């Protein structure tokens, strides 16, 4: 309960004087990230929607990466994972990451296959 708070974020680039200051700092960072997401979502710059990487638009990759960045700071600073023992942190974080990436991989792979069947099979779907 009374353990010390680690007050550095961005790998020590920004160091806060108190825990309260760190909370507000993280809020500002999360707000900026959300604002960037919303602006990109409204503008949809063409060079990001036209290029695709690993079968998905670059814009969507940016959204997903920014989401993971937000998730990291919520978990690390709001949920105080930064102050927990590394063994607890790893148990909490790596278990879902492993299971979810496996699930997402098999489901999206299967869905792409079904999409191909719908598209190229001898059934009419659009009537």
């Amino acid at each position, binding site marked *: 309960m009374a353990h010390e708070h680690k007050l550095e974020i961005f790998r020590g680039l920004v160091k806060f004087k108190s825990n309260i200051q760190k909370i507000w700092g993280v809020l500002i960072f999360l707000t900026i990230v959300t604002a960037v997401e919303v602006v990109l979502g409204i503008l949809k710059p063409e060079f990001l929607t036209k290029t695709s990487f690993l079968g998905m638009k670059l814009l969507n990759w940016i959204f997903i990466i920014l989401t993971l960045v937000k998730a990291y700071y*919520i978990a690390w600073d709001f949920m105080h994972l930064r102050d*927990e023992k590394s063994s*607890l942190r790893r148990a909490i974080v790596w278990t879902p990451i492993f299971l979810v990436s496996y699930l997402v991989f098999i*489901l999206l792979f*299967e869905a792409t296959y079904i999409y191909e069947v719908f598209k190229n099979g001898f059934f009419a779907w*659009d009537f």
Partner: protein
Amino acid sequence: MDTTVTTGNEENVWGGGNRPLGASYGKLMMWFFIVSDALTFSGFLASYGFSRFKFIETWPIADEVFTHVPFFHGNYPMIYVAFMTFVLIMSSVTMVLAVDAGHKMKQKAVVWYMFLTIIGGAIFVGSQAWEWATFIKGDYGAIETKGGRLLQFVQADTGERAAITSFAAALTEDRVQDTRDKGVWYTDEAALTTVSLNEVIEGFKADPNILIRTETINEEGEKTLLNREQSLGRLKDAVRVVEGANLVRNEYGSRLFADFFFFITGFHGFHVFSGVVINVIIFFNVILGTYEKRGHYEMVEKVGLYWHFVDLVWVFVFTFFYLV
């Protein structure tokens, strides 16, 4: 104490009575719950991805579905959801501040921050209810074809969406809602739509400024617009008017889209609601001085973990429903 003692709690991790992870029982159990709940939500979102990838070419575009802001007319995609996201993050911040004040045993500050957290949660749940109501009500209406495809209408000159009520012809028809006490006993239909299928078709034929757009997304990432002849051709397959959304069909496009929207945002909204209820209980406990007597505010920290988790899930729901 002598260093030769080997049964001491400090030295034998497996001897029991100590905390190898440095966290109390209650916090660990909350983390167990959060991890399993995170996997549940991941399962939902992954199955949403599954359905979306199956129908990647015809999935509705979120920017065109969620365009409303309360008290304002016009087209403001994403603005309101962004506001909701900010409200939830903000209430997360007041929650951490409550936890921080609890560490310092400042009862008054904890009360105040818990109160703000509850208000934030209530605003969020209210916004979500409004969002649902708008989604269920719908705004433009659409036509469904024999094959279950949806046809939406667009004004040819401005390129803006056209509501079916704006161009439908007024026909003198005798429309009766099919209920189980009339006709065949096992068939019935939902409430009659504001305009009938015939009225939409006749109105469409009379107004050359209206075009049909299909669900298919073209290379520009927009829905395919048909020309006048193609539109008239597609209209022959029309079977019913669709207004708003329910679990069977919706005017936005793929049926699974509305189903997942209701299910995932509903499940998340339920989490926020129960979070608010738990926060209210803790709020009164803080006022009564329960944790002051106990000597620590760990309970605030534990509900705080849950509350941040709800925020964390929303970050993902926001991305996968509204952005991607």
